[in-house]
């Protein structure tokens, strides 16, 4: 076998293309999951049964299914009913749906933790529900929800490796292929783990900084 430094140089380009895919999958599903999650949370705290019950059932339903099954379902079953998706699209969709539940619950927790007095004060100056949510409740709810939201982000990043099962060529998938063609499991998977840490450690650090800054502003 060639020396370690040469092997690292040989594997790195392939793993980095996988890393970019991981970042793309994570960011896209994070944006979608956050938007959907916010929608579930707003529906559940709308005060209307017609909105809150469907949101509750959707969240309960999706949370009860493992990510892998959701991914298989979207990638393999949807084409049978006419919805043909690329592996990448199916992967983003599956992650986004699953994580919209976690993120939705995180936002809902934040909304419910806002002091009742804030809602009364907003009402007492004549605010209607929508404006009250936008200007008074959500800014405070986001601040409360930020630490758990950061956790969700890191978990989503790590769970993006699950989309390798439907052949999305992200970091874990590239590692698996490289390892099976070179039999150099130790080097390849150590590099894969290190590359994930290159994302998660700065992300954790960033979240802490943002939390401190937001905390200081009140």
């Amino acid at each position: 076998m060639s020396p370690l430094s040469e092997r690292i140089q040989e594997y790195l380009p392939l793993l980095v293309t996988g890393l970019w895919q991981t970042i793309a999958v994570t960011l896209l599903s994070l944006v979608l999951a956050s938007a959907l999650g916010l929608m579930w949370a707003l529906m559940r705290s709308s005060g209307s049964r017609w909105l809150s019950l469907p949101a509750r059932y959707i969240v309960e339903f999706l949370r009860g299914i493992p990510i892998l099954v959701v991914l298989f379902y979207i990638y393999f079953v949807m084409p049978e009913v006419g919805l043909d998706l690329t592996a990448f699209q199916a992967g983003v969709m599956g992650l986004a749906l699953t994580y919209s539940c976690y993120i939705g619950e995180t936002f809902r927790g934040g909304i419910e933790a806002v002091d009742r007095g804030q809602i009364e004060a907003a009402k007492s100056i004549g605010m209607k529900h929508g404006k009250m949510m936008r200007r008074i409740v959500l800014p405070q709810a986001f601040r409360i929800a930020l630490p758990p939201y950061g956790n969700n982000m890191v978990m989503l990043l790590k769970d993006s490796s699950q989309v390798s099962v439907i052949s999305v060529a992200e970091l874990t998938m590239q590692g698996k292929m490289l390892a099976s063609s070179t039999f150099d499991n130790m080097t390849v998977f150590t590099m894969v783990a290190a590359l994930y840490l290159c994302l998660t450690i700065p992300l954790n650090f960033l979240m802490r900084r943002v939390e401190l800054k937001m905390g200081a502003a009140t």
Partner: protein
Amino acid sequence: MIRFENVHKSFGKHEVLKGIDAEVDKGQVVCLIGASGSGKSTLLRCVNGLEDYQSGRISIEGETIDAHAASIHAIRTRVAMVFQRFNLFPHMTALQNVMEGPVHVLGEDRDEVRARAEEHLRRVGLAEKMDFYPSALSGGQQQRVAIARALAMRPDAILLDEPTSALDPEMVGEVLSVLRDLAQEHMTMLIVTHEIQFAREVADGVIFLDQGRIAEHGGAEEVLSRPQNPRTQEFLRRVTHPI
């Protein structure tokens, strides 16, 4: 201006207001007193629809208050409220708190509102604190910002729910003195309070609530100095001579 006609209100089976009839005229200051659980805060909160009531009628300048009607939002812009625990918006500075309603609910011009808001904050003695967040202000300062926030709406009347009860004793005076100024300018106010001395000095009328009923209602001097009802006498004795 604010009229209560046979107002009944229950929380489940428990009836907290058992037929309230009263009136607050324009420019009057009326204090609601009574033991805790007598229904005085509930009555106050019914006026701007933070609570609903089951029967009877509450009206402002003839317009009926219905907590569940769409009209409640417009009514609330005319009847401001000051809370026991201030309830300032913690993510906004004092000035932003005062500007929030006029700019974002009434849709008034931002520059014009800012000038007015600064003037209100100056009047309550907080010219130096405009850009502070509520967490950097004392309780008394926060409550004065809350009063400025209420005034900025240019309301027809202000409802105050035990405005000094959550304050440290040394801060009660600064808030009462702001309210005294407002009373002198004939701001219509309905105040739930335990400050009997303040009520005696400032109020035009005093309503003594006892177990959901008006036990005594009249001029401040009349009710507080020569109470007729034994419940009022007993209550005043306990409040003014606690030991």
